[in-house]
């Protein structure tokens, strides 16, 4: 279904020399809500290299969107970054003031939003909102912005771009709106794009079209993409590296081939068993028991422990750290052997 994607994939696992464009270290985010403090993100580490596609997968509520939004300082009311760094171009985005961050948003980091119906202001024409990036960053004047946006919409396969420019969001179909959203993220040619479930709300044909478009354009410009998705299949076909999140921490991180061949973390294994595998169509799907918790307390042990079949006392006592298990493959679990460890983790 997606030959173009597989061909286009570049192999970055050998190219260690490349410095990451974006490096997130030990990010902790909390929300202050009327019924308590929600510990949405509890120490996330990942890095994105130039031109790389990083996929973040995980259950609903595992803090994927919050991680991305906190990097840009776009948390809603009550959200705080407690500690952590997000290095981008040698500056720590977490430490920047809102005014300084504004020069980064849109220009250096573009965002494709998850919520289709609410992503665009219903009170303004689509084209105005796409051109806004260019105008806000003074990349060009209003008139040239108008021309460039229309050209760009053509490139994205939006038919009749001149008329579409003046239409309101509710007059466009979902696929069109998502293309426009992609246009608004890419038109300023940023270095990194955060795509928060760019295709979840679309039907599968449109989903493939939009995805192909996104890959095409980003590969052409060498843009790095951080893509949040629920769909392991989509991730497998588009991403270079996968980060699995649960309960606000990174559970496993590996290049895609490695990830597909040797998944090791119990949560990843659970996810694999719960999703459909076209190579073994007869295998029964086994969902993970239980539901993802709302984190009203800081996790002391492994967040997955209440649902994990391998859980022991140590899991409930101590937060597992990300450890190297194979070259370029990191796992946070007490019961997965590390690279140089030949005996199981000692139980105190």
């Amino acid at each position: 279904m997606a030959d173009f994607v597989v061909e286009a994939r570049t192999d970055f696992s050998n190219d260690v020399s490349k410095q990451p464009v974006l490096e997130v270290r030990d990010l902790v985010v909390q929300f202050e809500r009327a019924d308590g403090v929600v510990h949405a993100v509890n120490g996330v580490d990942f890095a994105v290299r130039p031109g790389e596609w990083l996929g973040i997968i995980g259950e609903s509520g595992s803090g994927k969107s919050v991680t991305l939004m906190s990097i840009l300082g776009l948390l809603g009311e009550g959200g705080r970054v407690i500690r952590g760094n997000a290095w981008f171009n040698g500056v720590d985005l977490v430490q920047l003031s809102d005014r300084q961050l504004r020069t980064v948003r849109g220009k250096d980091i573009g965002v494709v939003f998850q919520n289709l119906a609410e992503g665009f202001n219903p009170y303004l024409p689509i084209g105005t909102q796409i051109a806004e990036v260019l105008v806000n960053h003074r990349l060009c004047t209003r008139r040239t912005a108008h021309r460039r946006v229309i050209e760009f919409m053509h490139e994205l396969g939006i038919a009749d771009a001149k008329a579409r420019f003046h239409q309101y969001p509710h007059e466009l179909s979902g696929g069109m709106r998502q293309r426009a959203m992609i246009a608004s993220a890419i038109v300023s040619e940023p270095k990194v794009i955060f795509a928060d479930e760019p295709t979840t709300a679309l039907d599968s044909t449109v989903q493939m079209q939009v995805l192909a478009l996104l890959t095409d354009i980003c590969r052409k410009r060498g843009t790095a993409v951080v893509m949040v998705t629920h769909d392991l299949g989509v991730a497998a076909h588009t991403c270079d590296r996968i980060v699995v999140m649960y309960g606000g921490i990174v559970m496993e991180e590996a290049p895609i081939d490695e990830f597909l061949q040797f998944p090791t973390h119990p949560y990843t294994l659970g996810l694999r068993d719960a999703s459909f595998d076209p190579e073994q169509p007869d295998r029964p799907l086994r969902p993970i028991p239980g539901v993802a918790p709302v984190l009203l307390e800081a996790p002391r042990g492994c967040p997955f422990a209440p649902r994990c079949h391998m859980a022991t006392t140590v899991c409930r006592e101590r937060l597992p750290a990300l450890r190297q298990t194979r070259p370029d493959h990191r796992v946070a679990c007490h019961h997965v052997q590390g690279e140089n460890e030949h005996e199981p983790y000692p139980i105190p």
Partner: protein
Amino acid sequence: MSFAAISDWHQRASHGRKRRRRLAWRRFCRNGLPVIGLAYIALLFIVAIVGPFVTRQPTVNIFQANLSPSWAHPFGTGQYGQDLLTQIVRGLGGTLLIGVTGAAISVAIGLIVGIAAGVFGGIIDAVLMRFTDFAFSIPTLIIALFIVVVTGFSAWNVGLSIGLVTWAGCARMARGLALSVRNGTLMDSAILAGGSRWYIATRYVLPQIASNMIVFFVFQVASVLFQSTTLIALDPQYVPLTGGQLPPGSNLLLNLLNGGGGSYIGYRWLFWFPLGVYCSMVIALLWIGDGLQALLNPQQPLPRRWFATWPRLRTARGARG
């Protein structure tokens, strides 16, 4: 241990009604102001109920007229030497009666019209909504004034007349809510199960919109009180700046409001005390309404006021946005 506790919390939150109620109460208290308002209104109700039994009708004594506040007369005395505090305490009941009857009548009419329009739909909906539009564009207070003139001046009649003309907002809101319930799946299942319209309206629609209606009721009490002050200010006895007179036999706080206006020149307590009691009452009602409204959408963070009692987190980065 902690995560077991969390999943336990999850279960309790989704299953325990008691827990939910306690959470709601906590959320209500968190903001500070609604609780103050609630306590104040409760105090006023107690005073209004107990007051007439422990005070006597203020006596007229010309030699004690217009005394400034003192220990004997904490709020001073009025034109004819009546104790102002006693007058306010005895007038409070009628004022609260106006607010509550007016709001109750308008919410009742609005609920019936709105739910009927929402549940039945079709031609009934169209007719009732045109009727509501008409009710929106009539000069309500003139009709209310007329009803008061015809039926006679009393707290009941003022409340009744205002309630009879101000139901349009409630009807429109109830219809919107009823429609949103109707478009949900619960309602479909009720219709498929063969429930009658009456059954659906009372068992499905009413409970689901009741909370919104309670909030509306609180705001409506404040609104009815305001309208009744306007109504009573149209009294011909009220002559600005030259000293209004209390109609004999009517003991409303609202009358004191307008009657005291003329006494502003020399006897300011006659102006400020009734006005202060009235305004604090209405503001307390608005605070309660705000607090209840915050309960309705728990996902939204409460509006943070500088005087609210929020625990503040020390953070690496201040709140953005």
